């Protein structure tokens, strides 16, 4: 079968077909420079401020769904087959403001106005899902949007007033849903896409099998899933990424299913796509999950990417290691499975061969009597990289601790288990003293770094205290709340 050499998608109302799309071309530059759609702003070019927020509608197995994403680090090629909606698409043909826009105007939700289109898009996405959101829901939806002028209060008031001006059902993304679905369906084709200049080649495999084949042909290609990290290689470090093999369009990579006593997470599932199943089966991760990036980042970034990337401060490895997760890597038709913790060899070094990719993650489901926790400490509560993150798992039988698995992020060059602390707990009684011993043992496990996120001393003390918190939080004798979320 011949390859397709064009990138095709719908931009607002228009069909777009681009003959030559380099791997590193961003959606934001396409919008602003090529299309002159300047309502979408560049504030940081690293997915942290949200001024570039647009909606990307994707036709998945569950139908068409729209999610806010950061256009600055979203590669243009990755919107193949999607519907891209920018702020210019909201106001009516007659110039009437969209309900979201009207609410923002009425409540003085803009001052300098530069972040405003991004806020409008995030609020739009929230309103489509939750027409009458609580303050907490608004806060969560706006974790990826920075405003330096308003102090946010007027924006929250606006968010809660949108439905006074209209209903999502009457919105054009609802009324045109069938038509857009039809147009996107027409764009689907089973061919591999290969486009872009030779030194900046873009490859969109046709399937997971095709991905494996592409990687055999290009074993050192950059694998781009959500681009929440690779995007920054381009926008901040000006690194070439071609040839790049994109995986975000592969539905097969996005499945999250219960498989006996495990959860199997496709490596391409975004944080958002995982969350429903995780909440159901691993409720202790729910609040933690909401603190990964902002909403836009959670809609793009993938669990597989978070692992494959190998960062010592990724949010998911510590909590998945604590649960005993395994990953499956694939090269060609060959699969191998290894404990997640074994994947991380050293700083910047993972157990992944050229041509190999992370295909899925298997997370054993805890038993009801297991004690689990996931804690993250960061300078700012939301949308920040952890100074310390930890997943803690243990089983207490007859008052005796067993099966302790404690994994930290931010404490070493890789996400790493605290073997000495685990050893100090296993076989010991569930008492404060045992946890004090574990806290002491932690100094043997780690010699954390000092950097702009935290000093070595703070990291160690906070890590020790998180063990103490775990004990208090799970101890029947604790009568008062021991963390802010519970209070």
């Amino acid at each position, binding site marked *: 079968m011949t390859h397709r050499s064009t990138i095709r998608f719908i931009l607002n109302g228009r069909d777009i077909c681009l003959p030559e799309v380099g791997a590193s071309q961003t959606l934001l530059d396409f919008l602003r420079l090529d299309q002159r759609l300047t309502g979408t702003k560049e504030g940081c070019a690293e997915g942290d401020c949200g001024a570039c927020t647009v909606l990307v509608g994707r036709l998945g197995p569950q139908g068409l769904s729209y999610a806010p994403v950061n256009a600055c680090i979203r590669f243009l090629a990755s919107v193949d087959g999607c519907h891209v909606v920018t702020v210019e698409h909201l106001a009516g043909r007659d110039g009437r403001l969209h309900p979201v826009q009207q609410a923002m105007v009425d409540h003085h939700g803009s001052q300098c106005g530069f972040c405003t289109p991004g806020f409008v898009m995030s609020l739009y996405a929230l309103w489509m899902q939750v027409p009458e959101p609580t303050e907490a829901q608004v806060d969560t939806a706006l974790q990826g949007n*920075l405003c330096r002028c308003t102090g946010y209060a007027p924006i929250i008031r606006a968010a809660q007033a949108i439905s006074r001006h209209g209903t999502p059902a009457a919105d054009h993304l609802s009324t045109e849903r069938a038509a857009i679905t039809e147009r996107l369906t027409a764009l689907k084709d089973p061919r591999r896409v290969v486009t872009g200049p030779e030194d900046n080649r873009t490859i969109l495999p046709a399937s997971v099998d095709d991905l494996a084949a592409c990687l055999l042909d290009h074993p050192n290609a950059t694998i781009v899933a959500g681009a929440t990290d690779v995007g920054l290689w381009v926008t901040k470090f000006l690194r070439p990424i071609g040839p790049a093999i994109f995986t975000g369009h592969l539905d097969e990579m996005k499945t999250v299913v219960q498989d006996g006593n495990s959860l199997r997470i496709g490596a391409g599932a975004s944080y958002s796509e995982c969350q429903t199943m995780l909440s159901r089966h691993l409720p202790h991760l729910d609040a933690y999950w909401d603190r990964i990036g902002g909403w836009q980042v959670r809609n793009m970034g993938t669990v597989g990417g978070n692992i494959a990337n190998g960062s010592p401060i990724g949010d998911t490895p510590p909590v998945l290691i604590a649960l005993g997760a395994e990953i499956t890597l694939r090269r060609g038709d060959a699969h191998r499975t290894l404990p997640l913790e074994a994947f991380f060899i050293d700083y910047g070094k993972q157990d992944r061969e050229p041509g190999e990719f992370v295909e899925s993650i298997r997370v054993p489901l805890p038993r009801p009597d297991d004690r689990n926790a996931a804690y993250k400490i960061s300078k700012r509560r939301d949308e920040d990289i952890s100074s310390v993150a930890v997943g803690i798992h243990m089983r207490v039988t007859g008052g005796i601790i067993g099966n302790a698995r404690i994994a930290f992020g931010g404490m070493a060059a890789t996400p790493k288990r605290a073997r000495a602390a685990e050893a100090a707990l296993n076989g010991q009684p569930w008492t404060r003293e045992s946890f004090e011993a574990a806290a002491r043992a932690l100094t043997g496990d780690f010699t954390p770094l000092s*950097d702009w996120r935290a000093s070595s001393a703070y990291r160690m003390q906070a890590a020790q205290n998180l063990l103490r918190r775990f004990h208090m939080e799970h101890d029947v004798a604790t009568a008062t709340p021991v963390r802010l979320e519970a209070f």
Partner: protein
Amino acid sequence: MKDAVSITGLAHTDRIHDSAAKHVTGRADYTDDVALPEGALHAYLGLSDVAHARITGMDLSQVLAAPGVVGVLTAKDIPGVNDISPTGLHDEPVFPTETIQFYGQPLFAVIAETRDQARRAAELAKVRYDPLPHALDPITAREAGYPYVTAPLTLKRGDVAPAQAEAPHRIKGRMQVGGQDHMYLEGQIAFAIPGEDDEVSVHCSTQHPSEAQHMVAHVLGVPSNAVVVNVRRMGGGFGGKESQMNLFCVVAALAAKKWGRAVKIRPDRDQDMTATGKRHDFVIDYDVAFDTEGRILAVEGDFAARCGFSADLSGPVTDRALFHADNAYFYPAVRLQSHPMKTNTVSNTAFRGFGGPQGVIAAERMIEEIAYALGRDPLDIRKANFYGPPGRDVTPYHQEVEDNILGRLVGELEESADYRQRRAEIIEFNETSPVLRKGIALTPVKFGISFTATWFNQAGALVHVYNDGSIHLNHGGTEMGQGLNTKVAQVVAEAFQVDFERIRITRTTTEKVPNTSATAASSGSDLNGMAALDAVNQIKARLVAFAAEKWGVAPDAVLFRPNQVHVGAEVLSFDEFIRAAYMARVQLSAAGFYKTPKIHWDRAKGQGRPFYYFAYGAACSEVTIDTLTGEYRVDRTDILHDVGRSLNPALDRGQVEGAFIQGMGWLTTEELWWDKGGRLRTHAPSTYKIPLASDRPRVFNVALADWSENRELTIKRSKAVGEPPFMLGISVFEALSMAVASVADYRECPRLDAPATPERVLMAVTRLQAGR
């Protein structure tokens, strides 16, 4: 004829921001959104990667050979003066020739066909240098014998030594207060279009178009009348675009003139944060003497500031820190000294409050010290020290505080926030909560309004009434989101008694109003509102004279009514009236002017009346901290703030809310962190954390003191609002301090340094628990 009882957009009403609909639709044009002329080029800066060094060579051959590159600009390409120091100290080269003074200093610019090409090429420079020792902070700099970047200031009144000697109590301490990045969402940006002869026109995002104009002229070596600087709006400024845009305007203009093509320069966020100045960090040594009732008897304070490699605005910034080191409190004997230290860091600059917040927080630290030493509620200590009647009403700079309303304002907030009851409940809560601890604090602010450089307190405006009755409004202020244009247009609408929509607000340009001051020091509405009103009054006077003559009535029979003019028994629509005036050859355009009265300042003596008036406010914040991790949350904040008779309560409330959150960010999560080599490692939102929606107080009650009226004759008796509420964020910091103090039973002042990151909170908890 429209028969309305009132016009739209009256002063003192909640008019929406004039650009609100454009903001929400993405149709508001920022500098980067304006279509460039055909053939435009793009510039990008090459920065140093060493903090202090002697330059021995700069090889730009690879830069020049890179794809798309048209050329480079270095110091050699400057036809005029290689200097952009805003205070004329000649200490800030556009590009250095001999010495690199900080990590991230611009060394050259590269010009290319696209921004991407310019950006990539800028990485290819080979700079050779001999490293020199560097000093990054004011204490290290002082120890290394670094000079001041500008003359320091001393404020003194009364005899400090005897007051200290006789005082029952005396506490000395040191406080470190971090700086702050502006993190305006729209970064620095300028583009220049070359004109005929020596002319050039610049479009940019500056708070100070006149200064940018003068800098461009100075660097190009042309008179100011050859340069036009235009600003439609900024995506946030906060002081960061007062002097910092000069560099970008100058580079764009130099390149535009050299290559005869339009040139745009837009640094990326990392470069913006690395190469442009921030709020000054301070190290403050204080010595406070007080009586057994907690009344302050004497204060000594040394304020050492990280100014960076050049003066920029550090002189007036460190001056203003001293002007606010009393906050709201009377110091019977006082000596305050500034130390504007040179350091090998980016040159720090204006930032909302302009040094004032660093002074205010020192005053609040001393209040805390007294309260913990005496075992008293800090609010009682605050009240005991408020400025009072004659005898207790003179500031350290010898200005009398004539308009103090803090007694009433703080009393009302104390009541509405239920401060006493909640404080008692919090103390009770803390007794039985081992991990989570709460704190509450009610802090006041008094902020002096006027540029302390007296000559800046002037403004101009230009108003045209076209013969169809439509009105064109222009003034010297710039719009950065604060709603200045809206407020000034309200003033004009009300004066003419015409609907707000009739007034077209136009971009700020040095062609229409010359020699303007920066839109800064919270002064925008005070100055430009008055200047616009002056212009309107000139036109109205001509119109009245014309009508009185034409219709044969007394001048006081000519009345401007909503969208009408009544001339005796005649009633004309505004349009008809204007048409008639035009036909009678009445001049329908006027330039207005205003200068603030009463102010004077003798810096050498440290005496005068630098401020026309004071703005006041108070905030009460409650927090909960986690003593295991140092994490915290703001549970509730109540604010009562004084804006005099508000020109626009909705916009003023927005300023208060936004300033509070920004002030809170300064003192909590916003941390600037340099590595040992002098490289700023918190240089983008991924590493530098400004508050998010979820960081705002869970309960946030904000009110304006609607009974307040400026006792001075300001525009419509309003007060400035941009900066004063920034310092309300200090209530959060003080509440965190109380929560920390609880672990040692409130017997010890926690002496938190700012910003109080979770790490600093935990470290303070640990220190107090250990009794150290």
